[in-house]
């Protein structure tokens, strides 16, 4: 107990409080800039954090990490430009809500969901770090493949009507994901001699091009009157600018489900917050009784991805703190900062010197509270920043998008890709193909391929070939869990169908 109090004391000095405040504020602003991901925000701050005491530098980094995840949803909601890839699922319902004048409500829902998901995963981290890490380590290529195939299939089918367009878009995303060097043979694929393509297509140009630039091209056809009006207009009605208690309560089941999904995914190295957000969105849509509201500004459609992507930020520290294994790039950056500051993590740290671990826990919870308080300020700042005429905002989005795409790899080619993908996204919208499944296919492609190409040769070494997967308890448990979820949803829909026919 003394060690816990000592750890909390380390993180609750006025210097570390100030550091968290600065980190969250900087993270929220950096996160809102397209192209600057949470990892990049952390990477930008790391050199500065070394000048401080460890318990000033580390809380500042954690605060920035959490702040940038929420900040990125603001632009995703208001101008359909996710600041980081993790916020791209938030566009789906956040942007329609903003178009109805309810941008403040959407951002506040994103804020509450972010803090909820964050706190949920931090609590899991505090109480179940060891157990969750052990479960996560049971997941091998077969389980990853199953998880990704089901995610791709369900999201592709659910994201459009007719469903074939969503599936086709998903598969096109998978094919674009092939471009670059083959991960196993290291031979170029679909590069046609262009050295720029050997690194593969960057996720940021894809996201910005297909979501933001295509939307700018689409909105250009508006009337002169529309284009000279304010870009973002918040409704005058009070209820449109806040999330009421009944509205929040109605989202609580979604928040718990999505936070659990995000926590589970974050505990598994490699999947990350973008995947968690899309899977949680798909699950929320499947579980709700009124899935037709999704895509038109459903609050659950904001709550699900935001809770999930923020839950990842806490739980991807699980393998980091329990085993010293970073779950993603941001966790790896935090690990490097901890190491430079002389803080040891891993199994021995829990038994020999747990004080810094408790200090990290305290800093995480503190960062959530500061994120909540500062988030309201961001709603107001966003309202002012986006009150410019629509035509100026649209043109500026293109320029900021291009600069953001360039910033990540320093490649002029990425600027060109942003605009090429913008045209492709615009044409896709024109012909009724949703761009988001394409992005999901592209994001999940490397993981899927890596795992599939490990499982299939592995299967050939077993007597029963692919049936070997059924000898794996983790695979069978996951299959049973997902099968039950799908069967439950199918049963509920059928029952609803019967009820509908009986009513008519």
């Amino acid at each position: 107990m003394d060690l816990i109090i000592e750890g909390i004391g380390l993180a609750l000095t006025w210097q570390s409080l100030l550091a968290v405040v600065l980190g969250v504020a900087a993270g929220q602003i950096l996160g809102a800039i397209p192209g600057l991901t949470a990892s990049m925000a952390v990477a930008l701050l790391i050199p500065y954090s070394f000048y401080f005491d460890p318990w000033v530098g580390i809380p500042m980094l954690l605060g920035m990490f959490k702040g940038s995840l929420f900040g990125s949803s603001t632009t995703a909601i208001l101008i359909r430009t996710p600041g980081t890839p993790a916020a791209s699922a938030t566009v789906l319902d956040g942007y329609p809500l903003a178009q109805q004048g309810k941008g403040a409500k959407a951002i506040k829902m994103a804020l509450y969901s972010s803090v909820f998901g964050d706190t949920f995963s931090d609590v899991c981290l505090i109480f179940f770090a060891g157990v969750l890490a052990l479960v996560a380590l049971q997941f091998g290529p077969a389980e990853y493949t199953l998880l990704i195939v089901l995610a791709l299939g369900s999201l592709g089918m659910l994201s459009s009507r007719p469903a074939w367009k969503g599936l086709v878009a998903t598969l096109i995303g998978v094919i674009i994901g092939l471009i670059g060097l083959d991960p196993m043979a290291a031979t170029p694929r679909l590069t046609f001699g262009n050295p720029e393509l050997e690194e593969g297509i960057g996720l940021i140009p894809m996201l910005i091009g297909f979501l933001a630039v295509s939307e700018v091209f689409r909105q250009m056809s508006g009337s002169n009157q529309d284009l000279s009006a304010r870009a973002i207009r918040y409704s005058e009605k009070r209820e449109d600018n806040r999330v009421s208690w009944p509205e929040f309560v109605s989202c609580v089941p979604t928040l718990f489900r999505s936070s659990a999904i995000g926590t589970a995914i974050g505990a598994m190295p490699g999947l990350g917050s973008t995947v968690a957000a899309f899977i949680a969105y798909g699950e929320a849509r499947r579980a709700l009784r009124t899935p037709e509201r999704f895509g038109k500004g459903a609050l659950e459609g904001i709550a699900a991805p935001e809770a999930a992507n923020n839950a990842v930020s806490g739980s991807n520290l699980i393998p980091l703190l329990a085993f010293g294994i970073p779950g993603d790039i941001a966790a790896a950056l935090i690990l490097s900062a901890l190491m430079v500051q002389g803080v040891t993590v891993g199994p021995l740290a829990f038994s020999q010197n747990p004080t810094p671990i408790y200090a990290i826990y305290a800093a995480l919870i503190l960062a959530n509270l500061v994120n909540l308080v500062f988030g309201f300020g961001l709603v107001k700042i966003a309202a002012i920043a986006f009150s410019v005429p629509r035509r100026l905002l649209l043109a500026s989005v293109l320029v900021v998008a291009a600069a953001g795409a360039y910033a990540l790899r320093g490649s002029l080619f990425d600027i060109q890709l942003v605009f090429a993908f913008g045209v492709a996204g615009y044409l896709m919208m024109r012909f009724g193909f949703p761009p988001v499944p394409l992005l999901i296919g592209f994001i999940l492609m490397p993981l899927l391929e890596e795992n599939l190409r490990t499982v299939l040769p592995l299967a050939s070494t077993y007597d029963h070939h692919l049936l070997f997967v059924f000898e794996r308890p983790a695979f069978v448990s996951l299959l049973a869990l997902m099968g039950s979820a799908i069967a439950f949803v199918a049963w509920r829909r059928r029952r609803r169908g019967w009820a509908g026919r009986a009513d008519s």
Partner: protein
Amino acid sequence: MFRSEAARGEAMLLGVLLVADAVLYFVVIPAGISDPEGFGLDQGLPPSFSGRLAAILLALVMVSRLVALALNPAVAQAAPDAGSGPAGPEAPMAITARNLIGIAVALLFAFAVVPAIGFYVSSFLLVAALMRIMGETRWHVLVWQPAIVAGLIWILFDRIFSIRLPVGYLLGE
């Protein structure tokens, strides 16, 4: 076979996409991905495996839809088109001359102007040109607003983040 107008339109789109998929499978993948000798299940799957699998799945999805349309053309009429799902609330829109000019200007910016005169001057020109295309006629607005945008980007990227955006081959690179 495809009795309704909607079914015919969708079938035509599917036909075009199936041809494109065939080109992908038989031309693009063999030309763009070379499988090293000896790749098989024992050594790991060949680099073209995923591409071929995706192309086959694409064909299966589209052929299934064609069969569904042929058997029951009403499915085409029943299906609301573009963006009724969560991926986009936007209705399908006509492409206007303003869209085409805007797209052409943006592509010119990315492929010709930025490499030549660098990011900041190009940004000024792009914002001014697009604002003009979108109906802004006041010349002073067409000067000061793009100048502020370019200036803010310079402060943010160059001064704060120390990220050097392209200068352009005509201006020093």
